[in-house]
């Protein structure tokens, strides 16, 4: 069977984050409806932001993410990955809300990982998170990048493994 290398732990994490933030009412999916696409856009984006997207997001809170680093040690089945989330909002309190949510959700290491593993929609056949924690969090400050927005960085460090066959290759 062909291995799907498009699968990524970061995308699983993003999926989980979005689900939780919708459930908790931190984000309103309807506010991100795109008439052009005829569907709602999830406002958690990878780094490639197009000018059209900036226009679409004008004034709306959103999150931009990227991987900082990926490392495998001698215990090569377990991957350690750092992910940077930058939260943008015109409302100071909305950023603090997301920061507090992230702390509450991800400070518990193994317990936080368990929550992701058993969440609805998680690709448990391919991934297993072992531990996740908040490696760093910056203060909320006016953004230099997007005028009129506040921003804050949240860095999560996750340890996970991907399901493998008997030779240690991805399945």
């Amino acid at each position, binding site marked *: 069977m062909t291995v799907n290398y498009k699968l990524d732990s970061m995308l699983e994490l993003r999926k989980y984050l979005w689900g939780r933030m919708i459930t908790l009412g931190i984000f309103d999916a309807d506010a991100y409806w795109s008439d052009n696409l005829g569907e709602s856009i999830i406002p958690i984006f990878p780094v490639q932001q197009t000018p059209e997207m900036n226009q679409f997001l004008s004034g709306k809170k959103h999150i931009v993410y*990227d991987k900082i680093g990926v490392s495998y*040690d001698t215990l090569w089945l377990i991957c*350690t990955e750092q992910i940077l989330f*930058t939260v943008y909002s015109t409302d100071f309190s909305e950023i603090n809300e997301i920061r507090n949510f992230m702390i509450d959700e991800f400070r518990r290491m193994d317990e936080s990982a368990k929550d992701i593993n058993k969440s609805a929609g998680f690709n448990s056949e391919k991934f297993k998170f072992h531990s996740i924690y908040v490696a760093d969090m910056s203060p909320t400050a006016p953004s230099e*990048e997007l005028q009129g927005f506040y921003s804050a*960085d949240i860095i999560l460090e996750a340890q996970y493994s991907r399901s493998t066959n008997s030779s240690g290759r991805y399945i």
Partner: protein
Amino acid sequence: MDYSIPLVQASSGLRSLMTASKGKVFKESLVAQISAYVYYNAQVVSKLSSNAAFKNKFREIIFNQIDKDFAEFVDAQARVKPKSLHHVYEWRQTGDPSARLFKLNKLNTEGLGFSVSYEFMPSKTFASTEGNRRHVFTKKASVMEAGMPLKIAPRHSKRLVFETNGYTVFMPEGASVTVKSPGGASVRNSFMMTYSRFFKSNLVNVSIRKSGFQQLFNKSMSKALKLPAEIRTVKYSFSPNTLSVQADAALASAFGGAL
């Protein structure tokens, strides 16, 4: 402070106890052995912290990890916030590890410590690839980071010609242009702030832990502290010089190629 000095001083007091008479066989051999044991351990620890090769390896293993993690941190920040950090990369390659214009330097300090600083490297790529305009802005990173206003004057041609807002502007002959915020207002001090954030936050601690020095150190130290067979056998007299040489040999064996 180098703690190995008081350690050596304290352990040197054991020298006299390492030589016993055979009159009181059991007790005095035990005292001599215990003294030799403590003296040997003190020798290993004190020699370790003053050993130049070990200190270099210790610093190197931690610095290399910090260097890697910091650079990756800046890369990610630059990809997420290109307006703020494009100046520390070659033109049109923001966030690309191969296009960095910054690097960390290590300065050794007392004991096992070291301090870290950064420097900007010269840009080598053309600022613009359009038309015949070929200019390398060598000090791109440092000038933009400092927010220094730039005066651009014609050197090889009579006048400046440039495009702005879709229009081509022809300046009068010999006239210069002043750019108040080269690279944009967002870049000023942004690298310094990113640097400061990394080194004042938990990220640097994560990096030090990740370097694996603790595991390697503990493993090698356990090996070096393993007592020589001589001390483990009943003897009435131990030579401090021999123990000192054995401590040297044990350290060389434990740390020689392990780090």
